[in-house]
């Protein structure tokens, strides 16, 4: 069974927000709901001034704090390693939102539940690739199987030394970043 993840090359991100709207459409989200964000960060003064765009989404942690705190077991990790919310058992208590150190969960006001990035798992199971990956004009995201050493993502991580965000938290995310 594959263990899916995404490697993000933030040096290539231009902050166009295509991933955001592609995701919204794929998952039929309202215009003010989103599963991914782009944060921009300034540093330095000209001539060493720089600006970085950092695409953010659920990190699909191996050791997911959101899953641990869920009182109904609605948050679970699928067999492919994707952290999902079962809409039928979620009671919308938002405990998971508080527990997520990355703050990557949102409220679905229409259904009264908590929602989040699903790595487009329905699409992936049909042989597709997550919408945020395929739409990206500069190919910032690489999607694939982290357990396959020959997959593009594994090779990218090996070559660039891409790291997850805040590895010190011990959450063991499956989203990796190359940031310089």
């Amino acid at each position, binding site marked *: 069974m594959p263990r899916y993840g995404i490697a993000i090359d933030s040096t290539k991100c231009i902050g166009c927000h*295509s991933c955001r*709207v*592609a995701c*919204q459409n794929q998952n039929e989200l309202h*215009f003010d709901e989103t599963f991914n964000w782009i944060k*921009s960060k300034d540093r330095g003064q000209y001539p060493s001034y720089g600006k970085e765009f950092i695409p953010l989404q659920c990190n699909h942690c191996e050791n997911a704090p959101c899953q641990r705190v869920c009182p109904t077991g609605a948050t679970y990790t699928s067999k492919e390693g994707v952290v999902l919310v079962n*809409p039928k058992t979620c009671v919308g208590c938002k405990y998971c939102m508080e527990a997520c150190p990355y703050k990557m969960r949102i409220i679905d006001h229409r259904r*009264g539940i908590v929602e989040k990035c699903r790595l487009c798992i329905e699409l992936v199971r049909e042989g597709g690739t997550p919408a945020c990956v395929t739409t990206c004009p*500069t190919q910032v995201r690489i999607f694939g199987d982290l357990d396959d050493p020959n997959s593009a993502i594994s090779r990218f991580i090996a070559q660039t030394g891409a790291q997850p965000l805040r590895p010190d938290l011990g959450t063991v995310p499956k989203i990796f970043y190359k940031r310089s």
Partner: protein
Amino acid sequence: MDNSGITRRKFIIGSAIGGASLVASNYLNLESWATTEESTQDLKVTPTLCDGCGNWCAIKVYTRGKRIWKAEGIPIAGNNLGRICAKGHGLLHEVYNKDRIKSPLKRTGPNKFEPISWEQAYREIGQRVQEIKKEHGPESFFWLQFPEGNAGLCSRFMNALGSPNVFSHATTCFLPRNIGWWLTIGSAKPEHDLEHTRFAIFLGRNIAAGLRLRALSDLSKAKDRGARFVVVDPRFSELASFAHQYVQIRPGTDLALMLAIANTLIAEKLYQKDFVDKYSQGFDELAQKVKGYTTEWAEQKTGIPRGVIGKLAHDLAESAPQAFIHRGYHGALGTQYKNSLQLVRAVACVNGLLGNFNQRGGMFFHPEVKLGRLDPQKFPKTPELGDSMVDGSGASDRYPITPVGLGLSQAIPELALEGKLKAGFVYHNNPLRTCPNPARVIEGYRKLDLLVSFDYILSETASLAHYILPESYYLERDDVVHTNHCFNSKQVAIRQAVIEPLYDTKPMVVILIELAKSLGIGNYFNFTLEEYNQAALAPFGITLERLKQEGVIDLGGKWEPGPPQFKTPSGKFEFVSSTLQDLNLPAVPEWEEPLVVPDQSDIHSFRLIHGKQAHHTHAKTINQEYLKEISLLNDMTRVWIHPERAKALGIKDGDCMTISNSVGKGRARALVTDGIHRDCVFLPSSYGVYSRNLRTAFGFGISYNDFLPTYFDPVLGHCMSNEIIVRVEKTPA
């Protein structure tokens, strides 16, 4: 830690709200997953062309029943290679926008509209047109458009009516870029083999916001292969984030940088001698002219250290011919400065010195597809009209090298006030927002005896029109065969309806055919869209059905590097432009000051520059909630200002600033950043919608056009949209 814990109080409140909404959702949205599954059964995929900007990316649109769901790119399409931008995704929702026009409208008073039938609209417009034609002649009519695939038919419509006055947005966008390149190499829009380049400079061109998905995809591949990119811009653009080096330049002085680079390449014999000897003319004159433009001189003008300028020249030479300076679009090379035409010529000349034409990793001319035509019996020639327009485009004594059919759209209000233009058709354009000095534009357009708009929403211009004949939204309409996806091979593509029109609207080609009848020019439109498209495809042995099935078809004819051919008067690459020489204009690139400069002694004085954001096109996408939300969430309407300049004015990040000059006044919040040159403030150009009929966009942000005087550049007549000086101050509390 703060954020990993949860207080008991928060938890209780959280569950209470959650519980309440759960109950509601069970009533309202029972088993929503089940309904989703059911609706996948009537899933349909239709290929078509996006209409978010002028790239017309090829997309596959998924529908569930009658409802549009999502889109994916078509991988072979030369312009987007299977990618879609935020606009492409977001505008799928635009078809359901609450502000859409639902039937033809007649304006009965200020902002008062009455729905009428198509027949009545055609009849009344026909009558008005005949009256005006009789009284003022057909030259008093104009057409203004953002050219679509059907632009040829629109021109045909006007020519049949007897008017040569077909305007586009060129004068507020790209005019000098096109003319400068055309003068030098005989082609207005050379392409770049970005994928195989080793070094490239982007001079005020920000393909990461004035998006070209193809170019970005190629750029990404080139980066992986180790290519280096430099962005030269007064502002740290989105592309600068992607590039390896950012060079901040004083706005309006890019020409000085180019001249110094040309000088360095020549003086140090770093240019491609082979290319220059074999394929160019006028090299000695160029060498003579640029001699004085040293890196020291350019440092004075541009503010870029001489060492950096010299390094750029060396980097270019080292990678040549697999290096280029981007051909530009609306940035410094577009209609922004008085010296833009000279700048484009200088950029072209530096590329000439690099000898990169038709070279791998350099620049090339994209393969062209010549579409078939209806037989002349069905498609009679329109009357021959003069070779100039009412605004002086093409006229030997006014703007001799400004092409007829592009025109100077900012001249329309002036010509209307003078009484030279009496009636107009505005298609896919919104001059009241996208032309300089809106107060003047409104005055001019008000003066027209007849204004017909084909808009799908009540934009500023449509709100002023006498009649609105709503075009179906792009997802609801069939259109003509396109050739815009020819990048490095020959491709044909087509736009087609994904869903039935939601309201009483029609495709533009159908409107043209029907309107032509009531205007007495029906004999020129004696065909159907189907026949027109079939004839277009006939030379390639492709059926219309097949094209509609596949969306894009590649016809082969892939570009390969080889000896370059130039369609200039001399047949060579022209360092000395023979056309400019004949017109007694500076034929070799030389320094020209920008029209205006900020007052260095006044702490309030700034140049106002503008640029695009990747999720917006002009001011036409901000009325879409999905796209506006991105601006709102990321606070993107702010005006960029340098920290030291801001400090002198007592402005802190996020403070409200008042921006004013003789043309207009507006307020915007400050983005204090090191990523902007101290001489200027930067205003994103996608905002400032003032039509109250666009309820999502109204009143959100401001536009640079509110501060831009109505200028006409002396050679081409373009609008010089960065020649704005404004006074910036902190808005009193």
